[in-house]
């Protein structure tokens, strides 16, 4: 096992609820005693319905939020320590849901250069990084384009390049595909996989699309701020009814396999790919 990239220990995040006049009427727990670990180079998925706390958790990995209880370490640094703030943000880059609201530049390459500029990287080095990152996400031919003329998937790839240019060890993607069409979704996932293979970055993917996480090393399922399930995709997807109770679903193949199993066919649990199911069925026949 490699180095631990991201680790939380009994992480709690509470916020104050206020009435119309702005008086505090109580506190709510968005995250409740979460323990999570991601090792360098791993692909970790966090699943959960809207409002389950998964995005709040993601924001902790980049020190946009700091825990009100417990601890979060990013690459060995405690995110609560103020002097580590910029190091934390540099080592764990973040890609958000809405592609329009995270692009700052009006030209693709200017946007990718924004991060390195903030880090104080020398000019020549910025250009080198911009070029490399745009190549890595396959957007180099769009370098002089306006982001407004790109498709959703292309915008997200530019956003990813913007993070890659900061040379992070870990990329946290907070529902990067929620606003995209199926083509865009595939584009973004392929890009992320390629980055992982080539640069060995740790990937934390937050999503509610199940098809996106079947290649994950580990899946955490969140509900009401708790981690309610954790395990490999196979382990997680073999618990179809439990997933459904957390407002999630499983890919159609898994659903079909589960249905057939309920009707009495001898099929193993946690089927993720259609080839697997077809093979089992043909053996049975």
């Amino acid at each position, binding site marked *: 096992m490699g180095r631990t990239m991201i680790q939380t220990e009994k992480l709690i995040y509470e916020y104050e609820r206020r009435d119309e006049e702005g008086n505090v009427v109580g506190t709510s727990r968005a995250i409740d005693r979460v323990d999570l670990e991601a090792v360098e180079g791993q692909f970790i998925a966090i699943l*959960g*319905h*809207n*409002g389950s706390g998964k995005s709040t958790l993601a924001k902790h990995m980049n020190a946009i939020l700091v825990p009100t209880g417990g601890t979060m370490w990013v690459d060995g640094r405690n995110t609560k320590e103020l002097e580590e703030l910029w190091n934390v943000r540099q080592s764990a880059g973040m890609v958000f849901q809405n592609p329009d609201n995270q692009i700052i530049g009006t030209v693709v390459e200017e946007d990718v250069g924004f991060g390195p500029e903030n880090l104080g990287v020398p000019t020549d080095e910025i250009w080198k990084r911009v070029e490399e990152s745009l190549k890595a996400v396959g957007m180099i031919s769009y370098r002089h384009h306006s982001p407004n003329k790109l*498709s*959703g998937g292309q915008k997200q790839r530019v956003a990813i390049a913007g993070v890659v240019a900061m040379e992070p060890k870990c990329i946290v993607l907070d529902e990067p595909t*929620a*606003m995209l*069409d*199926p*083509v*865009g979704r595939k584009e973004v996932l392929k890009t992320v996989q390629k980055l992982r293979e080539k640069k060995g970055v740790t990937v934390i993917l937050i999503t*509610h699309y*199940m098809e996106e996480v079947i290649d994950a090393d580990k899946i955490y399922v969140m509900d009401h701020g708790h981690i309610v399930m954790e395990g490999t995709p196979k382990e997680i997807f073999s618990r179809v009814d439990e997933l*459904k109770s957390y*407002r*999630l*679903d499983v*890919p*159609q*193949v898994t*659903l*079909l396999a589960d*249905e*057939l199993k309920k*009707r009495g*066919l001898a099929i193993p649990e946690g089927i993720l790919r*259609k*080839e697997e*199911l*077809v093979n089992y*069925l*043909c053996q*049975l*026949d």
Partner: protein
Amino acid sequence: MSIRLENLNYVYSPGTAYEKHALKDVSLTIPHGEFVGIIGHTGSGKSTLIQHLNGLIRATSGQIYYNEENIYQDGYNMKELRSQVGLVFQYPEHQLFEIDVMTDVCFGPKNQGLTLDECRERALEALRLVGLKEKYYKASPFELSGGQKRRAAIAGVLAMRPRVLVLDEPTAGLDPKGRDDILEQIAYLHRQTDMTVILVSHSMEDIARYADRIIVMNHGEVMYNDEPKKVFAHFRELEEVGLAAPQVTYIMHDLKERGLAVDTGVTTVEEAADEIMAAMR
């Protein structure tokens, strides 16, 4: 009661560098009471198409007949058409603006010139139809959760009692349960009333589950217009234009190739399970 499109063409920003032929010679008939699914990749013209149905966009050429009346003829009542053909845009919750949900839902009926009592009556009916709990009626629309906001916004269109309901990706951005809930609610609406439902979606699985008929758009043209089984039989052609068939359709094809006697026209999980069980026996 039907919508009929005849050789509809639409060109964006003609004569400029951004000129785009968004609809090419589209001819369609949508009979009353049908549940129609429209699929197509981004930029295929499906959003442009549905905005023609209530006259928000005027075709460059071609005709639209609503109940056999040409909507482009002089003196046609567009306002009346817009209350007959309700259009729910993508992320409709972004259009909520009133102080509470009830008042917001009343906006449509109010514009139709109804009395306050009638507005309230219709709003209540619409809110019940979308399954929003009564405790939210007096809440600010901005305090609701994503799924609830979307229901409130759909109710805002339903309160106008449209005969045709057009929804542009009503499940975008929702989680799986939220997605199923909204679709179930729409299917329920379709069963309860005799409304025509036109659903634009990216999810083949969803469309296969609910639609009587599927219209596939590609580069501004109608590529297929048929019942789901027949459309998804063309899964290879669909893939070429960036679309796909539901996952189960692929499984059935693979099984058949491996010698299992199953019907490949299956598009939902239940049907597939039935087929496989029958074939295994």
